[in-house]
Structures are given as structure tokens and as C-alpha cells.
């Protein structure tokens, strides 16, 4: 079912994004997890990717200026 890869870590690297996006097939997911179980080197890099995604989301979160909110409300079309 699963074919052997010449460089399993390189293959695992290719599977990282789809793995974290939950879009691998069941067979691919098991293959990735099988490798991760025995490879701390890849496991670290997967964990880093997860932390990075959360970190990026927090870092770019910029609250809307209050003045803009008022301007938007003023754009409403008055009732006749």
C-alpha cells in the first residue's frame, strides 16, 4: 500500500502542510504518523509549523479603529 521513499524525511516534509490541513488520505495520514512516531527531527518541525500558524494569526490581528466603525455606521441608508 505505502511505497518506500528514498528520503523519508523529505517525503514527510512534503506531507506536512496537507497533514496539518487535514486533507491527506487516510493511507497518507497513517504513513505520515508512522514516520513522525519514530522521527523526532520531523516531529519538531511539524510542531514548529503548528506554533507558527497560531503565532502568525495572532501577530497580524489588528483591531479595527473605532473611528472607522463610526464611519461605517454613518454609511447606512436612512429610512424614509
Amino acid at each position: 500500500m505505502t511505497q518506500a521513499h528514498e528520503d523519508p524525511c523529505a517525503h514527510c516534509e512534503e506531507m506536512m502542510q496537507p497533514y496539518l490541513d487535514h486533507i491527506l488520505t487516510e493511507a497518507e495520514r497513517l504513513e505520515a504518523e508512522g514516520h513522525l512516531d519514530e522521527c523526532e527531527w520531523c516531529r519538531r518541525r511539524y510542531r514548529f509549523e503548528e506554533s507558527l500558524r497560531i503565532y502568525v494569526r495572532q501577530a497580524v490581528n489588528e483591531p479595527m479603529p473605532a473611528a472607522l466603525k463610526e464611519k461605517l455606521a454613518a454609511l447606512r441608508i436612512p429610512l424614509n
Partner: protein
Amino acid sequence: MAETTPDATRIAAEARDRVRFEEEALGLADQVYRVARHLAPSREEAEDLVQETYARAFRSWRSYTPGTNLRAWLLRILTNLNIDRGRRTQRAPQTTALEANDYYLYDKLAESDGADSDEDRVVERLSQDDIVTALSAVPHDFRDVIVLVDIGDFSYQDAANILDIPIGTVMSRLHRGRRILKRELAESVLEDAS
């Protein structure tokens, strides 16, 4: 009497629907702004874009189908306005040269950190500015998808509808875009260190 009442009822019902639409749309403004902020090149342009989007949405509220995803509907207007603003003219076909593999950023950070380090600590070496700057350096086509999916929490399908591109293109741009982002981050961190 029989002539005016149905009309008055219809007008009242429409007014009620419009007010509901406006309130619902305004309730999403924070989320719309959060995405717009990184689709547009600057904070000022993001604010303009959000205002234009709401002005247009309030005018054409009848074309929104109640019960469908209003946030996606608003973002579709916003994305089209952003494209109309001529941002496409700056787009350069930057491709593979910018990319690296998925482990690249971690390797660079861990390498300059010396010993094996905790992943959570490694990520903290990136400053908020590093991330905002790196994101803005990602070419538009890729950045749009990252911003919608990874920051705006839109599904691939919603992102495909908003950008009017096939879902397969969303996925490939997302994967390549994240690599480009990590490459940019690695470069900014290495510059800081030198």
C-alpha cells in the same frame, strides 16, 4: 384602502429586511477589517477599502441572499474593489526563486539558535513586525489566499468563491504562499541577526 395596504406592508417589510442586513453587516466589520488590513498594502488603504465595501454593500443589499455567508459576500465585494484599484499593475511574476522547502524556516532559526531548541521558543524569535512585513512581501495572488484561509478562517471553497478561482488553485497557492512567507521570515530574521 385595499390598494394602499399591501404596498405599505411590502415597504415596511423591505425596510425591516434592509435594517437587519445593515446590522448584520456592521456586526462583521471587525472581521472584515482584519482581513482587509492584510489584503490592502497599507492601513489607510484598508480603511478606504472597507468603507467602499460597506457603501456598496448597503446600496446593493438586495443582491445578498439571506442565510448565505454574509462575511464571504462582503469579502467578495472587497476583493473586487481591491483589484479594481489597479493593484494588479504591480504584480510581477515572482515564482520559484522566492520559495524554499517547508522545513527551511525552522532550520534557519534553529541553526542560528545553536542547540536544539523548544519549538515554542523558536517561534518567539519572530517579532510581530517581522511577520507583518514578511506577509506584505508575499506576492498578491499568494497573499490573498493566505489572508483569507489562515487569517480570515475561510474554507477553501469560500476563498475560491471570493477570489473567483478554482479550489485546486486555492490549495496550490496556499501551499506555495506559506512557503514564500516562511522564506521571507527566514530572510528578515537573518538580516536582524547580522
